[in-house]
C-alpha cells in the first residue's frame, strides 16, 4: 500500500472511531430526568432571533412559567433556559450562549439561587445539568466550567479535575447500565423549558406571610460578589433585565437576603419583581396550586404565567406576536397544542390539575 493510502486508512479509521464514540455518548450523556438536555436542545433549534423574553434560572423558572401558554394566550414569545438547581453564576453564560442566536428584548432572571445560595446549587450534578446540556464546543460552556472549577476550589471545597468537568465521558460511560427509552431518542415532554407538574402540596398561606418582611439582611457566602459580577455583565452588554422571585413559602433569612438583592439591583437601575408579594393578584391558592413549598404545580404555573405576561407587556413593552403571521412562531403554537393535549390527558387521569 502506498504511503498516502495508509494515511487515508488511519484517518478514516480514526474518524469512524470518533463518530462511534460521539454517537455512544450522545446516548449515554447526562440523564435527562429534569429536562435539562431537551430544554437546551430545543433552544438550539429555535428560529434565529425569534425569542422576545428569555427566562433564566433554576426549577423556579421551569415550573412557574409556561412559554407555549404565554404565546397562545398573550402572544409573548418566550423561552426558559432553566435547569434543576441552576446556580446564579450560570445566568451570565447562558445569556451569552443565547445571544449567539437570539436577540431578546428582555431577560427575566430568577434570584432564588442567589437569595437561597447553598452548596446544592454548586453540586456536580447541578453544574453538569447546565454545562453538559450546552453544546460541547461552546466557548461559554468552557467559561462556565472554568468559573465553576475556580469556585469549587475557593468556596465549596470540592476537589475534581477541570478536565473531568469539561469532558463527561469519565462520568457518563457508567450509564450503560441504566439506559432507558428516553436515552435512545424518545424525547421527554418539555414545553420550551416548562415541565408539567401535577402534584399538590397544601399549606397554610399564613405560614408564608409570617416570614415575609421588609427588613434587609446580609447575603450569604459569595452571593454579593456573584450578583455584582452579573450586574456588571448586564451593564457592559446593555442588557434589559428583570429580576424575579417566584412565589413560595420561604424562610425569613431568605426574604431578608431577597430584600437586599432588591436594593442592590435597584441601585444599578434594574427591577426586582417579587411575585411572592403578588400572590393574591396572581390568584394563587396554597391549597391547590403548589406542588411543594417553593414550587407551583401546573395549575399554579398557568396563573403565574398569565400574571407575568401582563406585567411584561405593560411594563416592558413586550409585543403580542400572534397576529404577525410569521412562520418562526409556529413552534410555540405547536408546543401549546402539545401542552394542552398533555394536560387534558393528565386531567382525565388525575382530577387535581386546575390549569387553563
Amino acid at each position, binding site marked *: *500500500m502506498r504511503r498516502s493510502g*495508509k494515511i487515508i486508512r*488511519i484517518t478514516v*479509521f480514526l474518524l*469512524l*472511531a470518533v463518530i*462511534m*464514540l460521539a454517537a*455512544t455518548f450522545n446516548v*449515554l450523556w447526562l440523564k435527562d430526568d429534569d429536562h435539562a438536555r431537551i430544554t437546551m436542545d430545543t433552544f438550539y433549534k429555535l428560529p434565529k432571533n425569534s425569542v422576545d423574553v428569555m427566562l433564566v434560572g433554576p426549577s423556579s423558572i421551569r415550573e412557574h412559567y409556561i412559554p407555549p401558554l404565554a404565546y397562545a394566550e398573550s402572544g409573548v414569545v418566550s423561552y426558559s433556559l432553566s435547569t434543576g438547581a441552576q446556580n446564579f453564576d450560570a445566568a451570565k453564560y447562558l445569556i451569552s450562549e443565547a445571544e449567539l442566536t437570539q436577540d431578546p428584548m428582555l431577560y427575566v432572571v430568577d434570584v432564588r439561587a442567589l437569595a437561597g445560595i447553598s452548596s446544592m446549587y454548586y453540586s456536580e450534578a447541578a453544574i453538569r445539568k447546565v454545562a453538559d446540556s450546552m453544546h460541547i464546543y461552546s466557548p461559554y460552556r468552557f467559561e462556565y466550567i472554568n468559573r465553576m472549577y475556580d469556585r469549587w476550589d475557593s468556596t465549596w471545597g470540592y476537589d*475534581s*479535575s477541570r*478536565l*473531568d468537568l469539561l469532558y463527561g*465521558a*469519565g*462520568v457518563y*460511560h*457508567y450509564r*450503560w*447500565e441504566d439506559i432507558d427509552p428516553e436515552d435512545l431518542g424518545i424525547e421527554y415532554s418539555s414545553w420550551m423549558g416548562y415541565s408539567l407538574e401535577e402534584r399538590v402540596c397544601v399549606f397554610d398561606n399564613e405560614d408564608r406571610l409570617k416570614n415575609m418582611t421588609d427588613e434587609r439582611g446580609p447575603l450569604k457566602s459569595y452571593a454579593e460578589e456573584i450578583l455584582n459580577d452579573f450586574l456588571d455583565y448586564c451593564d457592559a452588554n446593555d442588557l434589559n433585565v428583570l429580576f424575579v422571585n417566584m412565589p413560595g413559602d420561604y424562610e425569613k433569612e431568605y426574604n431578608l437576603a431577597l430584600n437586599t438583592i432588591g436594593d442592590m439591583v435597584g441601585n444599578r437601575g434594574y427591577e426586582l419583581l417579587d411575585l411572592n408579594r403578588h400572590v393574591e393578584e396572581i390568584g394563587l391558592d396554597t391549597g391547590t396550586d403548589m406542588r411543594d413549598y417553593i414550587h407551583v404545580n401546573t395549575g399554579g404555573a398557568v396563573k403565574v404565567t398569565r400574571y407575568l405576561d401582563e406585567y411584561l407587556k405593560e411594563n416592558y413593552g413586550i409585543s403580542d406576536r400572534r397576529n404577525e403571521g410569521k412562520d418562526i412562531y409556529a413552534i410555540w403554537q405547536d408546543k401549546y397544542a402539545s401542552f394542552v393535549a398533555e394536560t387534558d390527558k393528565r386531567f382525565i387521569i388525575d382530577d387535581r390539575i386546575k390549569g387553563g
Partner: protein
Amino acid sequence: MQLISLPFFAGFVLSLAIYYLFPAKYRYLLLLAYSGIFIILSTPVAFPFVVISSITVWAAACKRTRTAVVLCIVFNVLLLAVTKYYGFAITNINRLIGIFGAGEGIAMPEIIAPIGISFYTLSMTGYLLDVYWGQTEPCSSLLKTMLYIGYYPQLTSGPVTRFADVSQKLFAGNRPTYENITFGMQRILWGVFKKIVIAERAGMIVNTVYGDVATYNGFFIPFAASLFVVQLYSDFSGCMDIILGVSECYGIVLPENFRAPFLSRSVREFWQRWHITLGEWFRDYIMYPLQKSSPMSSWIIDFRKKTKNKTIRNIPVYICMLAVWLLIGIWHGGAWKYILGMGLWFWSMIFLSEITKPLMSRIKSKLKIDDSSPLFRVLGYIRVFILVAVGNMFFRMSSLTAVFVAVKQTFTHWNPEVLVDGSLLKLGVNGNNMAVLILAVIIMAAVSVLGNKKSVRSRLKETHIAVRWVILLALLWCVVVFGIYGPGYNPADFIYGGF
C-alpha cells in the same frame, strides 16, 4: 505518572511524533531525553539513581574487569536493597530486638523506591555479566547505556531485557512503519482493555472479600483467590501489552513476558510462560552460574556418583533451585509472604512434581491414563490454576498471618450455596458488571489460546479490513463504555508497577 492516564498517552504521542521527525542518527537522544522527563514526572528521586547506575555500569562495562564488574553489581544491588528492602530488614531486626528485649528498636525511615529499580537492576546486571563473559560487546557510549537502563516504557513494569536483544533497535533510529504503529496501537488498546475492563472489575470483588475474610468466609475465599489470578494476569499482562505496544510504535520490539500461562500443565511450565523474562534472567544469571560454580558442580557430580536413585540424585539441583526461588520471592518484595508465597511455594510444587514423577508415571501406566488426552490436559490446566491461586494468595494478602487466617476461614465454614444464591453479586460488582467481567474473561482466554501458536495481530491482519475494523472498533467501544475509569475512581497502579 499513571500508565493509563492522559499525561502518559499525551506524552507518548508527542514524543513519538518528535521521534520520527528527528534525524535518524539522533533519535535515541530524543528517547533518552523523554525518558528523563518521564522519570522526573513520575518519581523525581529516581532520576539520580538511574544516572548514577548508568555511569557505574558504563564504566564497569568499559573496564570489563572482574573487580569492576563485581563492584558495580554489588553497588547497584545495594542501592536496590537499601531502597526496596530496608523496611523488611528493619522490621525483622526490630522483631529480634523485641524477642531479646534489647531496646526500642530502629525507627523506620521513609525512603521512596525509584521507579523500575527492580527491573533495571536485573537488566543492567545481566548486561554486565554478558560483557564480562564476552557474550556481548560493551557499549562505549554513556548516553546509550543510560537509555538502555532508563528507557521509559520498560521502566514502569519491565520486561527485564538483554542488551544484545534490544540495543540495536533502541539506538538505531527506526523508521516509522505502518505495521509498527498500527500493531503497537492495537496492543496498547488490548492492554487497556485487560486492565480497565477486567482487572479493575475483578479487583473490586477481591478487595471486598480479602478486606473482610471474617464475613466473606468459606467458598468466598477460593472464589476471590481464583479471581485474583484473573486480576493479576489481566493487570500484569495488560500492563505488558501497553509497554510493548508503546515500544513497538517506536520500532523497538521488547521481549514477551507472557505466553498463554494458563495453558500450562505443570508449575514449571507455568513459570516458563509467566513473567518469562524474569524466569529466564534468574535461570541464566543465577541458576546456571550457581550450578556451574566449582563447589556446586563438584558436589553435584559427587552426589550423582554416590546415588543410584534417579529421584534422589537430582537433590543438589533442587537445592540450587531453592536458592533461586527464594531470590525470586525476595525480588517480589521485602516481606516473608513473598518469600513463602512467590518463592518457597512454587519451588515446593516443582520439587514435589519432580520427585513424584516416576511414581505418577507408574500410576498412569497402571490405570492406563493417556495424559495427552483432552480431559487430562484440562485437568492439568485446572491443577496449575489452583496451585497458582494458592501462591498468589500470599502475593495479594497483607501478611502471612492474613493468609493463614483466610485459609482457616475457608476450611472452617461450609457455605457452597454462596456460589449460586446471588451472594457473589454483592461483593462490589452487580449482575450487569459480572456479566461484562465473565464475557471479557472469555474473550481474553480465547485470545490467549489463539495467540499461543500465532500472534493474534498477525491473524487479524490477514482478515478482511471490514472485519478487522469492526473488531478493533468494538474493542475500543468496550474499553470506553465498560472500562472502570473517570472521576471518583482512583486509578489503581498496575500491580507490578511498584517493583
